[in-house]
């Protein structure tokens, strides 16, 4: 005989559900606690590591870069705030803020020369000269990190890749594909001619002239009419090596 569902049956089922839920909650809680515990352990390990290698992190750019990578992998950003534990422990927050300020200063000082576009390598060299520290104490990686923090200010600092080089842009100029193509072409000799642009990039003469004139107006390029062949050369201080030293002079005055 089939039992019909009765009140007590429904109650039993409800009770069982409650039991399951409770059990489930318990399990979840235990897991969360365990995870929390693990995280605490991990954090303390990371802190211990950081404390132990504090000097290495501060002084050795390669080590610093690897430490950052490790932190990024576990979702910790030691630069997120200057008041956090990390900053207090390592003081690296200050380090990058200081770098940031110096980068802004260098970009401003060299702007009239390079139009607000500077080779990352050159920026790094100038930064080291300015800090008067050993040449390897600030790496390009550090510069990139400091610049990424500057973005928070909305000041338009950006790192762009042109060919093999990384350029740091400190003016709000938008560089389009055409501009980038020319900057890349200019990396070979530091300059281009209209003729070269037409030939190498297979552009019409109008397109080449227009693009070069725009770059000129933006202050990114300088003209040179002094060559024997009489062809106008468009030089780009942001890719030329001669400008590194020029930047230092600009900083002195």
């Amino acid at each position, binding site marked *: 005989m089939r039992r019909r569902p009765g009140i007590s049956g429904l109650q039993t089922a409800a009770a069982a559900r409650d039991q399951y839920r409770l059990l489930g909650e318990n399990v979840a809680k235990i897991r969360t606690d365990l995870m929390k515990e693990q995280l605490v352990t991990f954090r303390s390990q990371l802190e211990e590591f950081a404390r132990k290698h504090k000097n290495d992190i501060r002084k050795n750019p390669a080590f610093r870069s690897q430490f950052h990578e490790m932190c990024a992998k576990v979702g910790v950003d030691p630069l997120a705030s200057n008041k956090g534990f990390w900053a207090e422990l390592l003081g690296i927050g200050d380090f990058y803020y200081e770098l940031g300020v110096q980068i802004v200063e260098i970009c401003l000082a060299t702007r009239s020369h390079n139009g607000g576009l500077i080779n990352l390598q050159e920026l790094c060299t100038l930064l080291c000269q300015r800090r008067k520290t050993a040449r390897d104490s600030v790496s390009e990686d550090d510069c990139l990190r400091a610049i990424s923090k500057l973005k928070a200010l909305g000041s338009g600092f950006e790192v762009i890749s042109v060919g093999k080089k990384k350029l740091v842009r400190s003016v709000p100029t938008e560089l389009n594909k055409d501009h980038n193509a020319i900057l890349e072409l200019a990396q070979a000799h530091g300059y281009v001619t209209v003729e070269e642009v037409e030939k190498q990039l297979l552009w019409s003469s109008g397109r080449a002239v227009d693009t070069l004139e725009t770059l000129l107006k933006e*202050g990114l390029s*300088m003209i*040179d009419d002094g060559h024997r062949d009489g062809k106008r050369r468009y030089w780009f201080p942001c890719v030329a090596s001669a400008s590194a030293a020029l930047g230092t002079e600009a900083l002195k005055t």
Partner: protein
Amino acid sequence: MVGYRHHQRKKTGDEMQKVGDFKLPHFFNYPPYFTLQPVRDTREKQVQLWKELILDYCRSQKIFIIGLDEDFPLFTNPVIERTLSHEAREVFLSALVSEGRAEWIDKGHKKCLILWLRIQDWADCILNFVKENGFEDGVMTVEEIRSGIESRGTELAGIDRTVLMRALRLLEQKGKATIFKGTSADDEGVKFSA
């Protein structure tokens, strides 16, 4: 430390181009700086760099007059085969003139007097010289100031005669010197009164 500094100097010496014992700045080797730049901001920077270079160079070489159409070491860089156009020379010098650091000698702007020290500074320089050598209330000829033993090695050695006379006249106005005709026709004497 000494070794380190020596090394530094050697390194910069290798990198930089020189005219005599004057170290030329790096922009001197960057070709576009020899073409007048059409864009305002770039031009301003260019003019600024050239102004500084001209003053520094003239001071170090004791050059007082630049002829625009003459060979002048700064106007041409043989290494990069660039020469300043006449227009560019005039623009850079005019910029100095407008700041009171140079003066056109002729109306045609062919010759320019470079005042790396202003007349007032030259006057101060003379007063210092007078004090250091105890010439207060003494008499000197203009020629002595320019080429005497006492002025050797000082900024006054070889000073342009016109510049010197103007500085002396300024001192005369202030009552610190009296200029009078000397014994020979082409020389004048100065009596200082400190």
